[in-house]
């Protein structure tokens, strides 16, 4: 059961993030919601890569008494790293859009939008 805690956290994070994106009116909170969803997905990837007693997949640095079979597969970590980098770019772009919108509308409320119908 205790091993399921990360997965429950993932589900909670994604649910909280989706709630924020759908029901919050403040644009910054929408950006935060997206970041929370992203953290949930990243945590999911990392949890998949976890193995009890695993070691880093570096041959030259293998501790004594550990066989190469105990190395973890580095692919999930690589995927997470890529996803984090993309996430930073998206967050920066999103915040700069919010800044521009605030300059024009003088409000962060999503209900003060201009495009309707």
């Amino acid at each position, binding site marked *: 059961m205790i091993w399921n805690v990360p997965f429950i956290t993932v589900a909670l994070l*994604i649910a909280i993030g*989706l709630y924020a*994106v759908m029901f919050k009116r403040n*644009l910054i909170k*929408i950006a935060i919601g*997206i970041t929370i*969803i*992203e953290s949930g*997905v990243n945590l*999911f*990837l990392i949890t*998949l890569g976890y193995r009890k007693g695993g070691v880093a997949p570096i041959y030259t640095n293998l501790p004594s008494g550990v066989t190469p079979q105990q190395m973890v*597969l580095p*692919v*999930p970590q690589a*995927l997470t790293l*890529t*996803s984090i980098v*993309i996430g930073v*770019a*998206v967050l920066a*772009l*999103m915040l700069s*859009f*919010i800044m*521009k*919108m605030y300059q*024009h*509308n003088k409000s962060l409320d999503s209900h003060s*939008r*201009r*495009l309707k*119908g």
Partner: protein
Amino acid sequence: MIYNEAIPAILIGLPLLAAFITPIINLASRKARNAFVIAVLAIEELLIILLAWHVFTDGIVIYTMGAKNPGIVPLQAAVPIRIVLEIDGMAAFMGLISCTVAMAAGIYSISFIKEGNGKSRYYTLLLIMLAGMLGMEFTGDLFNLFVFLEILSIASCGLIAYRQHADAVEGAFKYLVVSNIAALFVLFAIALFYAQYDLLNIAAIAKVMQYTQLDKIALVLLVAAFAMKCGSVPMHFWAPDSYSTAPAAITAMLVAASQASLYALFRVCFTLYGSLMDYQTIGLAIIIFGLLSMFIGVTMALPQKDIKRLMAYHAISQTGYMLLGVGVGLYLLGSSDFNVYGIKAMEGGIFHIINHAMYKGLLFLTAGAIYYRLGTRNLNEMGGLGHTMKFTSIFFIIGALAIAGIPPFNGFASKLLIYEACYKVSPILSIVAMLVSVLTLASFIKVFHSAFMGPKMHDVKDVKEVPKSMLVGMAVLTFVIIFFGLFPGWVVSHIVHPAVMALVDKTAYINAVMGG
């Protein structure tokens, strides 16, 4: 033919490299920069024609990134290592669309986008957008698909907000939120696959797919994400906002970008799952998405006053046709009727993709031409443009007749295929499709009448024809529309049919990577 096996990699790499060289050339001279960008786009077009020719005659092309012999996928214990590009008929078909639209948009932008400190960045993002689209279409690797999806959406958002109006920034923000959530859904689905099969390659996953409970969740996530990104109802709200506020050339590119997501949707449904899943339910869901998109799109378009917003709602409605055609094919997959009219329906849907990219691209470019001269998108402030903007009005008529499905233009050819094939499944589908077509014509007659007909307006006397480069950009798309309209039989049998067969033939796609 002068074919080289490195062409798939060059097609993705060249625009990426050129994107970052463009600002450097801009330091030397603006003319050189324009010439450079157009040359790159023209080379892309040539290369994709070569590649498509090769794929349509010799079958699937494989390119393994970084391998000594890129034509063969290195397998280790039945796991393909390295990133594999896999170009089958469908991918080559989509590549043709992306490159053609990008070329027209690039030429059009030379005079459409006013010179300023941002224009070299504009071209940078345009080239990155092209690279993102081609990457999404060519890749045989799910994670790579996610990366290119993000490259595409970040570049598109930057371009939508290019003019930095309040409206443009808002449209870009909406698109960024929707596409980022869609991309995270895709990443979650990829993680589900990786958890079960330790694989990321599409062909390898398709080979060992068990269709477990987790795979069902992944299917729902992927279908929802790509349906969101292609602008189908009920997640269509971003499309009118971002399409109408982006510069016109970018709107044409956005149409092609949405279709890259549509391609990913079809790739997931047909290649990754295929007959394993409950294709009737998914097919029915896609048909319902299609019908709703068609009807809601066109009814929302009728009352619009903003010319680009009106066209954006039509884009949603036309996406419905593609979903309907391919959805009918998916619904019939595996039954004996599939070979009789399932393939016809899919041909109609797939043919409509390329037709729509051409005529909707053209219509957005004409709307951009009007905006360029008048500085407004409001239909009530236009009138009598036909007196002075003769070429633009001719291009608009051709685009409008093509979208309404009037012969001899290309829209007619694909819509007829869809009507015919859907009628055999349920006459209601065809009736809705025809009704939507009639409403489309009605709405474009309204636009034509209020923008081009009537006496010259007093306050806009200095309206001239748009500069040559914009006319050339529009003419490229018009040429394709007329060609496809005059020779639909040749196009269907030589380009569309191989694409459909590539989509349906799951085993060929798997064997090309996994061998035997």
